[in-house]
């Protein structure tokens, strides 16, 4: 009974607030009411109309080509932080102090308390001698936790099917940038990509993707700001089918996983995208490596809602370790498929568990 809640809510709030206001007015010393100028201030001479910015200019320098050493090289920047760990290696025996330091390293990397404790249990059962051995064992265990075999992106080559990859996540994790990067990759792999600017909520999000499309030479379908994102995705699939594009990459507006309505909207987008000739073959959750334990809740709720099939971990080129994906992969079985290492169109690489674990432990 949604209407009931509205009516109730409104009245309860009004009564509560007004009675407080009344009490406050009766108080001997009236608190200085904050000046609330309701009058619209006349807009004094608007700022000189600046020509539309061309962000491309600032980023024109061609990004260096991706090479395999990239991930270690980029991740290497923060290794100094974990110098403590290197000292650990030299410990001849394991006492509780060593455990504590180790725990701290893992916690600092956002691995989380439950996973850290699980690792400790597992290491306890393996009798290890010195610090060196302990760390090797730890790396083994971490890699075992990230044991998903298949990290490729699913694509149905069947004719008459338009593959749709849906990108979702909370606000500000880098969805739009990721869509552009994936588009570049897949175009290089010979796919005919069409972008769907499904973020109709945030100001200028469509514009942002359009500029990316321009830069990487991809086609794009855009809707009106504030419009229905499902309609944009639907249009994109129709257009793709008509024009022979085999892959639609659908951006969506950032949404907190706790917003029931917005999650419902996402479900609708997925339903619409799945209508033939469309087929949703990947639902990718974009996660920011700086995110802490909340990422686990995000992954769980989004998976329950729309069946997430993989994770893209962005911003791993900073000082954050993104250790929470260990818990995500372990508890929810969601594989990390791609890793974002920068703002350039080529800064996206497949997830490599070995390199990730090595970076995690500095």
């Amino acid at each position, binding site marked *: 009974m949604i209407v009931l809640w509205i009516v109730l809510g409104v009245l309860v709030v009004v009564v*509560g607030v007004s009675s407080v206001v009344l009490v406050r007015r009766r*108080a001997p010393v009236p608190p200085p009411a904050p000046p609330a*100028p309701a009058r619209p201030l006349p807009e004094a001479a608007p700022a000189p109309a600046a020509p539309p910015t061309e962000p491309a200019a600032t980023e024109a320098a061609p990004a260096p080509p991706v090479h395999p050493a990239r991930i270690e090289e980029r991740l290497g920047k923060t290794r100094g932080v974990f110098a403590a760990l290197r000292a650990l290696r030299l410990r001849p025996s394991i006492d509780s102090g060593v455990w504590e330091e180790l725990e701290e390293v893992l916690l600092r990397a956002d691995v989380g308390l439950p996973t850290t404790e699980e690792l400790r249990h597992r290491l306890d059962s393996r009798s290890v001698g010195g610090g060196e051995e302990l760390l090797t064992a730890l790396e083994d265990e971490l890699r075992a936790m990230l044991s998903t075999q298949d990290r490729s992106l699913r694509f149905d080559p069947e004719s008459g099917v338009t593959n749709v990859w849906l990108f979702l996540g909370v606000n500000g994790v880098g969805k739009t940038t990721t869509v552009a990067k994936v588009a570049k990759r897949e175009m290089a792999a010979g796919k005919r990509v069409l972008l769907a600017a499904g973020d109709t909520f945030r100001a200028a999000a469509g514009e942002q993707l359009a500029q990316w499309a321009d830069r990487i030479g991809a086609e794009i379908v855009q809707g009106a700001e504030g419009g229905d994102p499902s309609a944009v995705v639907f249009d994109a699939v129709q257009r793709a089918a008509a024009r022979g594009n085999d892959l639609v990459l659908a951006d969506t507006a950032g949404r907190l996983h706790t917003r029931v309505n917005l999650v419902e909207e996402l479900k609708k987008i997925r339903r619409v995208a799945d209508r033939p000739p469309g087929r949703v073959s990947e639902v990718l959750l974009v996660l920011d490596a700086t995110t802490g334990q909340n990422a686990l809740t995000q992954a769980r709720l989004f998976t329950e809602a729309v069946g997430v099939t993989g994770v893209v971990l962005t911003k791993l080129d900073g000082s954050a370790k993104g250790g929470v994906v260990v818990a995500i992969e372990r508890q929810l079985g969601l594989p990390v498929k791609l890793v974002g290492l920068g703002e350039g169109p080529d800064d996206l690489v497949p997830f490599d568990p070995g390199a990730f674990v090595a970076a995690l432990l500095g």
Partner: protein
Amino acid sequence: MFEALSERLERISGRLRNRGRLSDADIDQALREIRSALLEADVEVGVVRQFVAAVRERCSGEVLARSLTPGQQVIKAVHQELIEVLGGQPLRLTYAPRPPTVVLLAGLQGSGKTTAAAKLARWWRQQGRNPLLVGADLQRPAAVEQLRVLGAQAGISVFSEATNPVAVAEAGVAEARRLGRDVCIIDTAGRLSVDQALMDEVRQIAAVTSPHYTFFVVDAMIGQDAVATATAFHAALDLDGVILTKLDGDARGGAALSVKQVVGRPIVFASTGERLNDFDLFHPDRMADRILGMGDVLTLIEQAERTMDEEVVTRSASRLLEGRLTLDDFLEQLQQVRKLGSLGSIMKLMPGMSKEIRQAAEQVDDKKVSRVEAIVRSMTPAERRDPSIIDGSRRVRIACGSGTSPQEVNDLLRQFREMQRMFKGGPARLGALFGGSPAAFPGAVADGGLRGRETAGLRGPKGRKKKGGRVTPPKRR
């Protein structure tokens, strides 16, 4: 926001509360749980260690031995320590002696700088200032465009040009001076603390604009990295404070605790939703209350005072209590309340709201509220005064007029009638509806009352009695 953390702390404190005697083992156990609650809430490891040590100090054996309610002593220690860690008193904003007061925003990518800039500008406009927004994020495609759109929504002009960030910032401040704006908010591109080139750039921006305030914008969902990043930005920019964004999710907000503690700069503003209105000064003491689950009425009242028309509210509230509420009044109230922000976010601030009600409120979106408004607006004045004259054909007309169905019109009318009946009994009766505690209504009762069923309720270290005779009722369990 902070709910998960407060739930866990509440569980711990609930267990301790009624204990007459605490052994060392009890305290150890409680502290261990506090530690794991904080770690799960993403509080930085070092900060957790300090926090636990400080709480242990505060409840040293002697203090507890002298106390009749040692359990409460522990809770009090946690509460005091929380306030300490969150930053004591809120920052008192000052302004540059020679306008404009330049405010520089910096932070990681995606932390919400552009949105925060627009919200901040709007906030200052509400304080009677006249801000200018400067878009110096030339890195992310369409970032300036985004700022322009948000600026237009907030009615604040935006300055930017396609040169380079340092030049734009400098020109922006000059522009603010030329236009006689007293606050100049500079939005910068997101950058990683390990990116030397970009950190140099922001340092340069600070050098040419000499900001009065430099705020670090950080996402409430950030993990352990918060501290490393904040420290690096602090080293480069000498931060004055922190703006915490996306507090409306279920992130446990541990970053809030750590950043203040490590960098030594307070959280100044917090953003709690996607609407430009969902933004306010951060009050550490209230946040500590909220973490311990005591509601946050003060924030609600301040929001109300700022946005609502007091006369309208009191008039219709008194009619409401007399049971003479008409649909006209209801419409008026609806509009007043909507100025406050989304219903969900208001409900969160109300103490005594059960989890179920909060969840239900979460599901009420503004579109549905608009439908209710449309239904009432489609009625004639006579119908609004006396809904009983609405018969079948009027109902169909109203439904057509508002684009709803006669069923929906019926629902609204029925519930409105029920509501009127309920309010005739006064707010206490409505309180009964929510589970029996009139304390859910601030000011409606003389005393905050006890904490639900638990007679040894936590009254808090400050006695919960605020200035002006107002009483903040503790959260009903």
